[in-house]
Structures are given as structure tokens and as C-alpha cells.
């Protein structure tokens, strides 16, 4: 009744294959974007910035990256944390070496550097598959974190072994460092995430995306009908690492401000992003956002209820959080292995028919 496609006819293939074929969907997305760009910046405060919006944006970017690799190309990776560390340290070195550089350039260059590293660690995927590959990516995770811990050049020989982001600007407005205003950091991340979500959508719907999905669904058949596994897998590793590197750079430079490799980029971060992708939906751009939102907002909410509401000690809340997240992951895999995105699709189909059952 309210949400319908009747009367929304397509007269060209271009109209048929656009991202949001339904008019209502398009309006909704434009509405959300307008709200995010034009309304939120005026009302944002420090709490919303630091505990909700920034982490959501940063982890969405990481989830997008992992979803390209795992969801679209079917290559399971447990090295996300390590690749985020590459992005973070690359951005640190760039910020220190070129203080005048626009932060957008810094973040994107960090992503490109991470993409190179990603290709290197993706090479084994040409010979090994599945769990074996997952273990190979663990090598990346542990080796990279160790590297950033042990080689002083990466943290510019600072005594603490930490890196901390100096104040850097975009068109004269500070987006990193302690003095950066909330609206600036928020808009900075928002622009990056929106632009690259659009890019991800484009990449996944065209030739490249199909070659990834073909490799994911049936690699041997894909190769026989003309997909080069070398190009498909390595491009997936490169682009996935590009996104993950950017998210690492954003996490360190904009959100955290300072970082120490084992703490900020440990194996648990790899799992966190993997969970986002599972909960949100493997092979779905929307799912990456839903998953990130869920796994960022859910703990905030739980913490508010348990610590703030019930007055329980924080460690107890942390344990319960683990129990809930673990339980939810299992629940999702049992009930809806395609994640929240699929759930959303089903809801939409129901809505299209409402108030009739069929």
C-alpha cells in the first residue's frame, strides 16, 4: 500500500539496473543522506561523535572492505586488524612527513599503500583455499602487528612505542588532533564513507564484481568460462585492503588520536569486522552498514542499560556483552545466514504486498 512498485515501469535497461530501482527507495536514500549531511552536523556533540557516529563510520568502512573480500569474493580473511594497522601507520608516517597534505589525500594514500600490502598477503590465495587461507591471513595479522611493535622507524622512535596523530587539516579545518571540532571529524568520515560506498556498489555490480562472485560461487567453473583467478582474487585483496587501510587510517588519525598496535589492531578487531559482515549480510553493501551499526550500537546500548541503568560493575557488563554477541552470531547463522540485509529484503517484500498476504 505505502511501499509499492506497481506503476514504476522501466523503459530502458539503464533504468532497470540502477542501484535503487524503486522511486520510494531512492527518495528514502536521498532523505537519509540529506539528513546526515545537512542536519546532523549542526546538532552533533562530543558524546554522539565519539561513541556512536565516528565508530560507526570507521567500522562501516572496514566492513565494506572485508565484505568485498569475504562476502563477494569468498576469501575468508582473519587479517583485518593487521591491514588496519598498515593503514594507520601509513597515515601516521604521511602526516608526519608531509604536514601540509590534505587529510583526504593522506587517508586515500594510506589505503593505496595497504592495498599493496594486501596484494602481497593475497598471493597465497592463488594456491590455497578456505580454512587454509584463513590461517595464511592470520600470518598477516600477527606478523604485521609484531612488525609495528618491533621496528622503531614505524613509530618514529617514540619512547612509548605509541603513535599519536598531530593536528592536520582539510581546507583549513582541523580534522585530526584534540582540537578538531566534532562536526568536522564527522563530515570528514561521512564524505569518505559515502563516496567509497558508492564506489563499492559500482565495483560489485559490474564486470569485476561478477568475476569475484563467480570465484566465490564456483571457482573452477569460473576459470573455465573465462575468469582469471589471479586477477579476480588479487583485485579483491587489493580493493578490500584499500578500504580496510582507509578505515585503519580513519580509526587512528580521526577517531582514536593515538594507537598502540597490539591494543588497537589485535586479532579481536579482525573478528569484530568479520562479525559485522556476518550479521549484516555477506555480499551486501547495505549489510556492511547494518552490521557495523549493530555491533557498534548494541554494546553502547547494553553498556548504558547495564552499567547506567542497573548499576552493574563494568567488567560484568563486558562479560555479558561477549555472551550476547557470541549468542547473536550463532543465532544469525542458524536463523538467517544471509544477515540483516536479507532480513530487510524480506521485510520490503512483505511491505510491497501489505495489507495482503500474497
Amino acid at each position: 500500500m505505502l511501499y509499492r512498485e506497481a506503476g514504476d515501469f522501466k523503459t530502458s535497461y539503464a533504468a532497470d539496473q540502477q542501484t535503487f530501482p524503486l522511486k520510494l527507495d531512492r527518495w528514502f536514500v536521498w532523505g537519509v543522506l540529506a539528513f546526515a549531511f545537512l542536519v546532523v552536523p549542526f546538532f552533533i556533540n562530543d558524546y554522539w561523535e565519539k561513541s556512536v557516529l565516528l565508530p560507526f563510520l570507521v567500522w562501516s568502512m572496514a566492513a565494506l572492505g572485508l565484505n568485498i573480500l569475504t562476502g563477494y569474493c569468498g576469501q575468508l580473511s582473519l587479517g583485518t586488524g593487521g591491514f588496519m594497522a598498515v593503514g594507520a601507520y601509513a597515515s601516521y608516517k604521511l602526516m608526519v612527513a608531509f604536514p601540509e597534505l590534505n587529510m583526504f589525500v593522506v587517508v586515500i594514500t594510506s589505503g593505496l599503500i595497504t592495498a599493496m600490502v594486501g596484494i602481497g598477503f593475497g598471493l597465497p590465495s592463488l594456491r590455497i583455499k578456505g580454512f587454509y587461507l584463513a590461517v595464511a591471513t592470520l600470518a598477516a595479522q600477527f606478523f604485521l602487528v609484531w612488525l609495528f611493535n618491533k621496528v622503531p622507524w614505524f613509530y618514529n622512535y617514540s619512547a612509548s612505542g605509541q603513535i599519536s596523530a598531530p593536528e592536520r587539516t582539510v581546507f583549513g579545518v582541523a580534522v585530526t588532533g584534540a582540537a578538531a571540532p566534532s562536526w568536522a571529524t564527522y563530515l570528514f568520515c561521512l564524505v569518505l564513507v559515502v563516496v567509497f560506498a558508492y564506489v563499492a556498489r559500482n565495483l560489485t555490480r559490474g564486470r569485476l564484481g561478477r568475476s569475484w562472485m563467480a570465484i566465490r560461487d564456483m571457482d573452477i567453473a569460473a576459470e573455465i568460462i573465462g575468469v582469471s583467478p589471479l586477477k579476480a582474487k588479487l583485485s579483491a585483496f587489493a580493493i578490500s585492503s584499500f578500504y580496510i587501510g582507509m578505515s585503519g587510517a580513519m580509526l587512528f588519525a580521526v577517531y582514536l588520536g593515538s594507537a598502540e598496535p597490539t591494543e588497537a589492531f589485535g586479532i579481536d578487531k579482525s573478528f569484530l569486522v568479520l562479525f559485522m559482515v556476518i550479521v549484516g549480510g555477506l555480499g551486501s553493501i547495505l549489510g556492511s552498514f547494518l552490521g557495523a551499526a549493530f555491533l557498534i550500537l548494541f554494546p553502547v546500548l547494553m553498556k548504558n542499560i547495564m552499567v547506567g541503568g542497573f548499576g552493574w560493575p563494568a567488567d560484568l557488563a563486558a562479560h555479558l556483552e561477549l555472551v550476547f554477541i557470541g549468542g547473536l552470531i550463532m543465532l544469525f547463522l542458524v536463523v538467517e545466514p544471509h544477515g540483516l540485509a536479507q532480513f530487510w529484503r524480506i521485510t520490503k517484500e512483505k511491505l510491497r504486498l501489505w495489507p495482503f498476504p500474497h
Partner: protein
Amino acid sequence: MSPDFLNVIEVILNGLMAGIMYSLVALGFVLIFKASGIFNYAQGVMALFAALTLVGFQTGQVPFAHLINATFGTDVHHWGSGMNTFLAILCTMAVMILFAWLLERIVLRHMVNQAPIILFMTTIGLAYFMEGFGDLMWGADIKNMDVGLPSGGSFWLEDVTKGWASEGSEYYGMYIDVLDVWAAGIAILLVISLTLFSQYTKTGRALRAVADDHQAAMTVGISLRSIWIIVWSIAGFVALVAGIMWGSKSGVQFSLSLIALKALPVLILGGFTSIPGAIIGGLIIGIGEKLFEYSLGGMIGGATENWFAYVLALAFLMFRPQGLFGEKIIERV
């Protein structure tokens, strides 16, 4: 013999002992993988959980004391002075079996014939769940485990090896923890009995059938449910043994669950389905990382044990993707 040479031997021996610990965890992985095709990431957390439970029973902790106190404002922590070790082990085993049963009922039952990667991710969820649950039940503080196994350096070995060094050199004998020797003995016993079980009993054959194909096994009348409960119970038992060994060695704490990750490269070397493979893989990794750290670690900053196992497995995979004992895979379409 020169002290340097003796040092190397000591490093190798210690590596062997560490390797046995890895093997113990890897063994649990192999069992579940062989019997259900599930790659059980939670094996390490199961070891942690088993160890926590054992200590809890031994010392007479009240389960969920923390939660109860927070909810009702009470102050409970112990219900008595605890059980004796043997009884506590039995009770822990009962808990692990109950856990296997619940897991089958609530989760695994719905996952028949799912893709292996989905099952793998389910066990990651399970690992998180159990970690939180274990902490919630028994508290997250580091606990000491004492089940009466001897520990500490062996003076006898120290005295004997001191005599090997050449005259006048400064050498004080080798340090080998007796606990490690015990662990080695128990691991060997465990492997022998498990191999016999899976090769020569009817249940063992059913286990292998299920591993090959869930649905096919069901059509010939094997009850998937009871098999899965049995397998997860056995894995729980192996986890308990591993938990006792690791716990006695380095205390019951979260890092225990991280050994699960170390078991992954072990499995890559040894193959996912081979029990002897798990043992040999564990030994190779154990010796390899200790030797590497001893010889080169100091030069490049130390703590290479963090990644050496994975990089070794990776290098190995490049040359033999099917593992040490796996057969060459012929792909078909």
C-alpha cells in the same frame, strides 16, 4: 660437549614439550573435524572453560556469584571448601557433556549440511559466547590450578646433563619441567586410545562416515545427533586434559584460549584429519618457534613466537597445499 650445543638441545627439548601442548589442542580440532567436518575454532576456549570449571569446583566457588551479587545485592562467593580433585574432574566432565548436549540441541541440529565456512563462523560465535559465559560463571581473575601433578625443574636431569658439559665450562645443566614430561606421557596415551577408538569401534566408524557426508550417513541409519553429542563430549574431554596441562603450567587465564590460534598452523602442517599429523605438526611448530627465537629472535627484536608458527605454515602451504600427510587433490568438474 660444549655448552652451546647443550643449550641448543635444551631449546629443542623445551620446544618438543611446548609442541606437545599445541598437539593436545590440535587433537581436539582434528577429532571434531573428522567426525563432523566442523572446524571448531572454540576448541581453545573450551579448554579454558573446562579449566575454569575444574578450578571452580575444586575451590568451591559459587557459579555466577558476580552476577548474583550484582542483581540481588548479596555477597556470595564460596559454598564450601570445595571438592577433591578426582570428583571435581568428574563433575567438570559432566558439565562438558551437558554442554555438548545443549550445543547439539540448540545450535548444531539446525546446521546440518551448511557450508563449512558457515559452520566455522558459528564456532567463532561459540568461542565468544563461551569466553563470556566462563568469565561470568567463574570470574575473570587469573586462577591457579593444582591437580596434584608434579611440577618444577628436574634436579636429576640437571645433575646428569651438568656432567655432559666439557670440563671447566660454565654450564649448570638443563632445565626441563617435570610437568611437561607428564604432559607428554598423557598426550601419548590419549592419542593411542583415540586412534584405537576411531579405527576399531563401531562408533568410531560411524564418526568417520558422518565426517564424509552428513546426509549419506543419515540414510544408512546413523543418528547424527548422538554422534555429534559423542564427538563434542570427546572434544570436551580433550579440552579438559589440555586445560589441566596448560592451566597447571601457566595458570588459568584468558591467554589459554589463544593457544587455539596456535593450533591452526599445527593443523595445516599435519592435515585436518590426521591424529598422528596433529602430533607431528605440533612438535614441528614447537621446536621451530623455539629454535627460531633462540637463534634469530634476538637479532630482529624478539617475541617472534607470536607469528613464526603462522609464517611457517604459510610457507609450507605454498609448496604443499594438501599438508604433510594429505593426499594430492585431483580437482574435477
